[in-house]
């Protein structure tokens, strides 16, 4: 009993803690957007759709398979973590049946949301005489659990074995190299995933809300630009962290023979790549109204975020002072946009960012520079 409690803390507890944002969003989509009185009928219809329509069933199974992979990824990742290497000596020395039971309980713990929802759907299917979908759901869940337990057991018996993920990673590393402008995007995607996910979800929600509010009214670029400005403002903490990343890990790039122009272009490309989801939304919604408006917005985005970053070339600018400057710039740009001065605003922002960059780059030194 004690072992499963410890495993529960190591795997199940940490899994839900690390994925709070994901579950919060999922909970909101499943229960938050439907009025309380219609909640049961909504989910009943959803389950009926799953069990009565083949395509819908395949879609649901596909999404649940992805979730199962996410669970297995997490457990295998924890097993590969140096901090948890003691698990090989502890669980690994248990009798086979007990070890498998423990793994099954661990997997049921992390896989529970899908298991519960699909089990209820299977009960609905049986009650409505959709026996084949009910059997499919049952078999699917059994396969997901047995597969996971087999993989965990295999990993435990072969510590240090190269997983499929690592093989894939090695192949990617051999086939492609990471260009300098993408370093921070990689950093966000690998080590600061939560910050990136929260920023992107909020930013895209702001843009979607903007376009939803505009429906029915005549198209006005100022309204879209206002939504975009708020969306960009939400990136200010990610930009603030960029300085920390560069100070800590990219000091060596300052000794490379790259012109300031190339370095500044790399900075704009970094933020351009970071804003690709927003650009997609903007193109979809603005292209039918004006073919050049989306270009204007992309220009604003790759001017404003570099400007926020260039402010940080003043080493004594802490987070409080930085946020004051960011809000000040946001207000100025907002008023310029509302006053139809958006082209001037974009030119001024880009010029300010570039001037700050070329004048400050070589003069910048991290605030905590160690003296040796």
């Amino acid at each position, binding site marked *: 009993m004690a072992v499963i409690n410890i495993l529960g803390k190591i795997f199940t507890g940490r899994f839900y803690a690390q994925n709070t944002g994901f579950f919060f969003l999922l909970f909101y989509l499943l229960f938050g957007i439907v009025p309380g009185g219609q909640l049961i009928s909504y989910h009943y219809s959803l389950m009926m759709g799953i069990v009565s329509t083949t395509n819908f069933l395949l879609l649901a199974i596909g999404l649940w398979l992805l979730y199962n992979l996410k669970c297995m990824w997490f457990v295998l990742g924890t097993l590969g973590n140096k901090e948890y290497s003691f698990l090989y000596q502890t669980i690994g020395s248990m009798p086979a049946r007990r070890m498998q039971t423990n793994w099954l309980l661990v997997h049921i713990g992390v896989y529970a949301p899908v298991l519960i929802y699909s089990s209820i759907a299977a009960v609905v299917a049986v009650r409505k005489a959709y026996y084949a979908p009910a059997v499919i759901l049952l078999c699917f869940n059994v396969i997901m659990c047995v597969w996971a337990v087999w993989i965990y057991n295999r990993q435990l018996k072969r510590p240090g074995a190269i997983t499929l993920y690592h093989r894939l990673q090695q192949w990617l590393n051999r086939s492609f190299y*990471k260009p300098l402008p993408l370093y921070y995007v990689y950093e966000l995607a*690998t080590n600061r995933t939560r910050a990136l996910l929260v920023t992107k979800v909020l930013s895209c929600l702001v843009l979607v809300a903007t376009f939803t509010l505009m429906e029915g009214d005549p198209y006005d670029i100022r309204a879209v630009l206002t939504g975009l400005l708020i969306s960009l403002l939400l990136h200010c903490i990610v930009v603030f962290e960029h300085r920390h990343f560069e100070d800590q890990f990219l000091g060596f790039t300052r000794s490379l023979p790259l012109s300031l122009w190339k370095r500044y272009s790399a900075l704009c490309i970094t933020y351009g790549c970071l804003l690709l989801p927003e650009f997609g939304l903007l193109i979809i919604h603005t292209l039918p109204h004006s073919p050049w408006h989306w270009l204007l917005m992309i220009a604003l985005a790759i001017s404003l975020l570099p400007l926020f970053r260039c402010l940080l070339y003043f080493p004594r600018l802490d987070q409080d002072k930085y946020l004051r400057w960011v809000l000040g710039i946001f207000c100025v740009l907002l008023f310029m946009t509302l006053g139809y001065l958006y082209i001037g605003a974009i030119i001024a922002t880009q010029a300010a960012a570039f001037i700050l960059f070329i004048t400050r780059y*070589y003069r910048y030194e991290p605030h905590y*520079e160690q003296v*040796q």
Partner: protein
Amino acid sequence: MGTISETAGGIEEGLCTSTLGIKCAFNVKFISPYLRMITLHQIQKKYYDSLIISVPKLELPHGIYWMQGGNGAGKTTCLKIIAGLIPFEGDVLVKSTISSKRQPVQYRQMVSYAEAEPLYPAFLTGRDLLQLHTGARGEGYESITELSALLGIPAFIHNPVSSYSSGMLKKLSLLLAFTGRPALILLDEPLITLDTATIPILYDWIRRFHTQHGVSFVITSHQLITAGELQLTATLVIDNKELKKV
């Protein structure tokens, strides 16, 4: 025959005949001892108005220099100044003409720096870093593939640096410093964490790059780097926050 300038040097190439009568081609870079490889002019580095290091005037001809100083004396700060990594008052010139402030790109083309304790983003592989350096610095004096093979780097070059030991990371950072065609290579504590088999290889590189390619070196080390291994031109000492040639 190549051209040799009295003040700057040049490339001597031609044919020679050995005592066994075998003819062979040679290509040796000749660097004039009168050429001022590094000129530090009125350098001052301060942190919060506190002076860290000062160099009123120091001219170093082509050579291999050992920089000495106790812990916290300012050796790394001095190397970072010469490498153009941190801002400072004054100016550093390479080959008397290329200024770290007026021609920052050309200057960085001429100066390479290997950190004492290199730190890179965890997700990058050795290949990514090598690609970045060779892409920025251009073709080197020698084949980078052969140099990396000598250090055993190909065995782990495709792995993320987060999986490297400190010795592997050190080998990679040293290799990166030998990319391109620098006139000056700064090595900050190059011997720490290196295995005993690699140290002679590094010494051989330093000797070869110095004599054949005309590269000057400034090396900081708490370990004795002479002992018949390297012929030092002079020793640099940081005494009372001032860098001097001994």
